C-alpha cells in the first residue's frame, strides 16, 4: 500500500461519489448534508444510526442508496418478539439431503435497514450488532459472510420510549455515526407532496455504481493521507471529551479511529487525497455525539442530545486548530 493515492484514483473516486450523490438527490429532497454523511459512512465502511421521528424518509434514504449502487436491500422491522434467528437466519433439516441446511436471514444483504432497533430484545439486538462488527454470521460453528459492502441503517425513535430496550453505550459505539434527518424545508416538502408515489418500492432509480466500485472506494479511503498535526488534533478532541467534567465517560479508542476514518472518507468524497482539520470538525458531532452520555442525565432524550452537541461544539472551539 502506498503512502498516498494517485490523482487518477482520486478523481475516479470523486466521480463515482458525485454520481451517487446526484442520484440520491432525486429521491431525497433538500437533505444534501445527510446524503453526504451517508456516503461518508459508506466509504468509511461504517454503520449508521438514524434517530428521528417516523415518516421523515429514513427508509427512502436507505433504499435509494442500495438502488444507486446496485446492491441488495433488506428491511427488518424490529419488534419485541423478534428472535435472533429472524435476523441472521436459521439451520433447518433437509429431508432429502439428510443434513441441516442454513437458510439465510434478511441480514444477508448489502444495505440492511434495521427499523426501530430499540424495540427488539437485547438478545436480538446483539445478534445484529455482532454481524455489524464481524460482517459474518456464525451458526452451528459455521461462518457465513454477509454481503460486501455491508451497511446497516438502524433507526430509533427518540421520543417514543414506551416498551423499548434502549441500546447501551457500548453498543452505540459500534455505529460510525448517528444522523438526524429532520423535517424537510417547505419547498422540498411541497415537491414531495406533489410526487405520485407513496411507497419506497415504487421508487425507480438507475444504478450509477456497482459493488466493486464501492469496495474499491473503501480501500482508497483508508489510504487518504492524514498529516501528523491533524492526527494530533483528533487525539486532542478525543482527550478533551475524556477530561470534560459533564460527560460520564469520554470517547473510546474506537471512537477516535471512527473519527479518523470518517474524515478520510469525507476528504475522498470532496476529491482530496488528504484530510483537512475542517473534515474532522464537520464530523465530530455525528461521530462522537451518540458515544457520549451526560453525568446528569436528562429525562428528555432530545434535550440531552442537544446538550451533548453544545458541549462538543464548545470543545471544538476550545481545541486549537492545527494551522
Amino acid at each position, binding site marked *: 500500500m502506498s*503512502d*498516498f493515492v494517485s*490523482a487518477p484514483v482520486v478523481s475516479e473516486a470523486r466521480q463515482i461519489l458525485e454520481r451517487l450523490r446526484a442520484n440520491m438527490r432525486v429521491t431525497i429532497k433538500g437533505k444534501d448534508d445527510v446524503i453526504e454523511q451517508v456516503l461518508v459512512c459508506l466509504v468509511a465502511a461504517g454503520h449508521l444510526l438514524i434517530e428521528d421521528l417516523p415518516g421523515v424518509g429514513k427508509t427512502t434514504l436507505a433504499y435509494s442508496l442500495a438502488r444507486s449502487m446496485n446492491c441488495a436491500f433488506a428491511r427488518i422491522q424490529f419488534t419485541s418478539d423478534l428472535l435472533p434467528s429472524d435476523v441472521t437466519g436459521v439451520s433447518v433439516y433437509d429431508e432429502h439431503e439428510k443434513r441441516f441446511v442454513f437458510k439465510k436471514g434478511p441480514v444477508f444483504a448489502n444495505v440492511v435497514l434495521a427499523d426501530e432497533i430499540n424495540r427488539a430484545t437485547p438478545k436480538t439486538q446483539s445478534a445484529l450488532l455482532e454481524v455489524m462488527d464481524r460482517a459474518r454470521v456464525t451458526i452451528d460453528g459455521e461462518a457465513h459472510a454477509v454481503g460486501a459492502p455491508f451497511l446497516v441503517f438502524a433507526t430509533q425513535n427518540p421520543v417514543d420510549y414506551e416498551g423499548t430496550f434502549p441500546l447501551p453505550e457500548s453498543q452505540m459505539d459500534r455505529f460510525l455515526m448517528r444522523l438526524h434527518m429532520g423535517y424537510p424545508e417547505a419547498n422540498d416538502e411541497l415537491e414531495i407532496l406533489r410526487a405520485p408515489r407513496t411507497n419506497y418500492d415504487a421508487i425507480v432509480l438507475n444504478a450509477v455504481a456497482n459493488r466493486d466500485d464501492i469496495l474499491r472506494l473503501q480501500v482508497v479511503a483508508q489510504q487518504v*493521507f492524514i*498529516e501528523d*498535526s*491533524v492526527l*494530533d488534533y483528533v487525539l486532542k478532541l478525543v482527550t478533551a471529551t475524556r*477530561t470534560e*467534567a459533564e460527560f460520564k465517560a469520554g470517547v473510546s479508542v474506537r471512537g477516535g479511529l471512527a473519527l479518523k476514518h470518517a474524515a478520510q472518507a469525507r476528504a475522498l468524497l470532496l476529491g*482530496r*487525497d*488528504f*484530510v*483537512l*482539520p475542517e473534515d474532522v470538525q464537520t464530523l465530530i458531532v455525528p461521530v462522537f455525539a451518540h458515544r457520549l452520555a451526560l453525568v446528569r442525565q436528562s429525562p428528555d432524550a432530545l434535550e440531552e442530545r442537544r446538550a451533548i452537541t453544545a458541549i462538543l461544539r464548545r470543545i471544538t*472551539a*476550545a*481545541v*486549537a*486548530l*492545527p*494551522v
Partner: protein
Amino acid sequence: MSMENRRPQLNLAELHQLKWLIGGLLALISAWTVVYMDVEAWLLLVLATVAIPVVTVRPGLTMRVPRLAHRLAFPILLSVFAIDMAGHWREPLPPVIRLALMLVLYRVITPRKRRDDLQIIVLGLFLVVVGGVVSVSIVFAAQIVVFTACALLFLLVITLVDGMESEPTLAGETGGWMQVEWRRLAQRLRECVDWRVAVLGGLLFAGVVGLSAVLFMAIPRFELGNSLFLDRLITSHAKTGFSENIQFGDVVDIQRDTSVALSVDVSDRSQMPAQLYWRMLVLDEYSKGSFRMSAAAKFSLDRVSAQNARVQGDAPLSARTPVWTFYVETGTSRFLPLLGAFNEIGFEGEKEVAFNRDTGLVMLRQTPSKMLAYRVEGMQSGPSLKLPEKGGEIRLNDKSELKLPSLTELVLHTDEKVKLAAWVAEIGAPPGSAPEFARSASRWLAKRHAYSLQSSIGSGPADSDPLVRWVDSAEPGHCELFAGAFTLLARTAGYPTRVALGFKGGSWNARSENITVRNSDAHAWCEVYDKAAGAWLRVDPTPGAAAVGDSANAPQGEAVLARIRDDSWAARFESLRVFWYRRIVNFDQQSQVRLVHNAKKLADERLREFKKTLREKLEALKAWIASPWDARRVAAWGLSAAAVVFGVVGWRLAGRGAWLRWRSGRMRGGPDPVRREAGRWLRKISDSGSVMADLDGVRAELENLRYGPSAKWPEPTGVFRRAKRTLARRRR
C-alpha cells in the same frame, strides 16, 4: 475558532522539570551572593554549591529525604537561627542572611509547591539586594540582571504550570515528572519554544536593562546604602589595615596581603610626581622599642571633627594641580591616604571627619564599612611638606592636660644614647642641614644593613632597646626598622623626626587608567623637620628608595606611569571594579554632564567619519566611471551583472523552495518549514475573510502543502508567491 497554537506544547511533567531547573538556578545565584558579603557562611555556601546542582539535576533525590526530616526541619532551622542570633545580637544581619541561605537550601533539597517556589524568589531577592547594597560591587549588577531574567522565566513557568494544573488531571500524576531526561527535555524545549517570541522577549529584557542603565546614569545620585542603613548592620572586620594603634612590625603584616587597598584617578597624568608616597598617619612617640601615635596627637584629631561633605586645607589652589579621586577599599583604614597638603577634600556625602592642620592627617570618625570615595583638589605631591605645625608644635586645647612628646628627645638608657651619639658622629654630616644629614644617614644605614622582609633582631638584655640592638648588629631589615633607626639617629642629631606610614607607589592600570595601590605596597618612612626650609622633609631611609633631593632628576608625569604599568589579567578584572566605582560615585553633576558631552562628541565624530567615508566612496565611484572603458572591462561587468540577475531570479524561482525542501527533509520530527509557511499563508487568507473564487485555488494548493502528503506537493515557492499576489490583489 482559535487560530493560535501551531506548535507542540510542553506537557505538565516537562513544565515541572523546567520549573525545577530554573528554581535551582535561582537558588544558586542567590546563594553565591554571600561570597561578596562579609558574612561567615562558608560551610553553608560550600554545602549549597554542592547540594543545589546535584539535587537540581536529580530531583528524585528529594524523595529520599526521610519524612521525619521535614517535620524536624522547621524547629531545627529556628533553633539554629535563635542560637546564631543570640551569639551575634549586635549585628543581626549576618544571622538573618545565614537563615535565608539555610531556607533556600532547604527549599531546594525538598519537593516544592507553588508557595515554596515563590519563597525561593523572595529569599533570593533578599540575598541579592542585601549583597548589592553591602558590597556595592559590579558583580551585583550582573547578578541582579541574571537573577531578574531567571525570576521572570520562573514566574512564567509557574503560571503555565498553574494553568495546566487547574485542568482536571488523572490521579497519581504528581511526582511522575521526577524522572528527568535532561537531553530529551532540551530537545522538547527546542521543539516547543517559539524562538521568535523568545528572541523578542530577550530583546525586550535587554532593552529594559539598557533603559535602566541609562536612567541610572541620568538620575541624580542618592546613597542607597545610607538610606537603608544596611551597611551599618554589617561592620567590616579588616584583616589588615592601618590604625592609630599600629604597632611596630604591623606594616610588614600588611605587606603580606596583596589585595587592592585603594584605586586613584588623576585628572592630569602629566602632573604625576616622581615618587608616590600615600601618607596616612604619623607616629610621633617612641617608647619601649616601638613607635606609636601619641595620645595628644590622637586627641588633637578627635577635637576638630565635624560632620561635613568638604574639608578645607591650607594649600593654595592652582589651575595646574590635578584633581585626584580616591576609592579606598573596605578595611584599609579610617585615615585617608594623601600625597601631601591639600586645598580641599570633597566626599560623596556628609562624613564625620577629623582634620588636623598641624599634622596634615585626615581621619574618619568611623571605619568605613564600604568603599570610601573622596576627591582632593590642590594636593601637593612633592617631597617636602609645608604644614602650619613648626617642628612638632601641635596646638592643643588649653584645657588639655596631655603633653605632646618632644620630637627630639629619646627615652633610652644612657649607654644606648652614647652608642647613638657615636653613630651620628660616624655619619659625620655637617650640623644644621637636615637634607645633608638625611642623605648621609641613609647611606650609612644602607651600608650596614641589607633589605629583607625576614629580619631578626639579635637578643640582648630584656630592657635594652631593640632598635638600637638592630642598628648595632649586621642583620638585614625591613622598612620599619630602617625608618625607626633613622628616626633615632636624626633625633639624636637634634632634628625633629617622626615615622610616617602609608603606601608607596602602586601600579598603573592602563585599561581603566587609574593607579592601583595594594596592601603589599604598605610602607614606612620618616619626616624630618627642615628648619631652613620651614617644611617637613620626606626621607625614605629604606635601601632602594630615592635619596633626598634626587627626585628633582627623576622622571615625572607619563614616564612614571609607564614604569609602573600593569597589564595583567587581574588588572583587567580590577578595571571593571574601578569602572563601577566611577559610575556609582558622584561628587556633583559634573560627571553626568561629561558623560552626555562625551556621548554627543562620539556621535558627532562617528557621523563625521561616516560622511567622510561616503564622500570618499562617491569620489572613487566618479573616478571609476570617468576612467576609460575597454572591451574587457565592459565584458567583465556585463558578466557580473548577468550572474547577479541570474542568481536573484534563480533564487526566486527555485532557490527558496529547494531550501525549504532540503530543510524539511532534514528536520524529522520537528515542525516542517514548508507546512509551517503554508499554515501561515492559510491563516492570512482566513484572516482576510475573503471568499473570492480566485482565492479558492490558492487555498487548495496551500492546504495541500499544509496537510497533504509531501510527495505530491506542488512547488512551494510558486504557491507562496501566488498566495502573496492574490492576497495583495484582494487588498487592492
